[in-house]
């Protein structure tokens, strides 16, 4: 048999064996730009302060809050259970370890939306998943959860229910004692039949 063929066959087998030991897709975890744009535009990566408050109160173990403000800001106030990962440290090994925990929804927040959104884009491009942004950030958190404003009397019942829920949440997060009223029930309507005063007359 031709010696060249044997050598070429051996080279192919060796290259094939090499493929077994290669890790699949090490360099291609980056999300393509058009897909990233779609994900950004459909706004499903936002989580509202009310949803977040409810999940924390229910003790949802999948919530992992990530505070992307500077360490100095974060030292002043952080949401319960949050981990401070300043923007500059977003791609370090330690942050990666935090952001790749199994079974967690990572929720970025800052004072507003901007830093958290930037962190979301960078982490998404780094190939991480289950990332969310707290809509409105801490400012919205204070406005809606910590110090909710009562709705105007003309607003629909849903606004009052939401207000009551927020009062409850506020109590949970601040320890304040605020009387939580149940939503008002309608007045009882008297349903007793009136007795007829006229006799039934012929009809058609």
């Amino acid at each position: 048999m031709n010696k060249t063929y044997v050598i070429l066959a051996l080279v192919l087998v060796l290259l094939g064996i090499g493929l077994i030991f290669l890790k699949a897709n090490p360099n291609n975890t980056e999300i393509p730009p058009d897909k990233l744009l779609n994900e950004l535009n459909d706004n499903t990566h936002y989580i509202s302060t009310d949803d977040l408050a409810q999940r924390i109160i229910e003790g949802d173990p999948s919530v992992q809050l990530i505070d992307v403000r500077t360490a100095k800001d974060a030292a002043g106030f952080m949401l319960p259970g949050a981990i401070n990962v300043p923007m500059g440290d977003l791609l370090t090994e330690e942050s990666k370890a935090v952001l790749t925990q199994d079974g967690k929804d990572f929720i970025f927040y800052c004072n507003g939306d901007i830093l958290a959104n930037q962190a979301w884009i960078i982490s998404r491009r780094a190939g991480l998943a289950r990332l969310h942004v707290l809509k409105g950030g801490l400012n919205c958190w204070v406005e809606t959860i910590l110090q909710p404003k009562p709705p105007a009397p003309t607003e629909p019942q849903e606004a009052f229910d939401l207000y009551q829920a927020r009062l409850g949440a506020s109590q949970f997060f601040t320890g304040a004692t605020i009387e939580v009223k149940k939503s008002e029930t309608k007045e009882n309507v008297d349903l007793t039949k009136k007795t007829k005063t006229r006799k039934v007359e012929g009809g058609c």
Partner: protein
Amino acid sequence: MGPLIPSNILDPSWNNVIALIVGIAFGFILESSGFSSSRKLAGVFYGYDFVVLKVFFTAAITAAVGLYYFEYVGWINMSLVYINPTYVASTIVGGMIMGLGFIMGGYCPGTSYCAAAIGKIDAIVFSTAMLVGILIFSEFYPLLESFYNSGFLGNVTVYEVLGLPVGWFMIILIVVALGAFYVTSLIQDKIKEVDY
């Protein structure tokens, strides 16, 4: 970085230009390796010449091994590479029809044009007949449509269907290919030399 067009490195209008260049190169190499001879091509069915099997199988495994190494070093993103959709039932029947035509005519579609280009009369007849066949198929397409689309599996690869890691599938494919080369060379040695 690659594939060049899906990664927006080249404009999609380059598609036809690249296809033309690759096509000319492919035709040239087919012709220069003797694939414009219907007797050589038909040899794979009669057992006196297995060069078709060897060339195409070698091309497949070399390209596949190369692509996965390219992917490892980041030259190509395999998730962007187009994978032909699989229709099992129509593929089997289509393959049998194509094989029958291959034995009878001694050409596959690409080599028939290659041979027609150098003026072989049988290849000119073959490629004209192929166009007639395409016309008949197109006219009867509404009748065949449901069968044509049957057994759809999506854009799958063999290793995905088998649930094997790519590396293991590749080594199996390479061993099968090398085994086929060895066995066919044994067969070829046994069969008396055919003059063509």
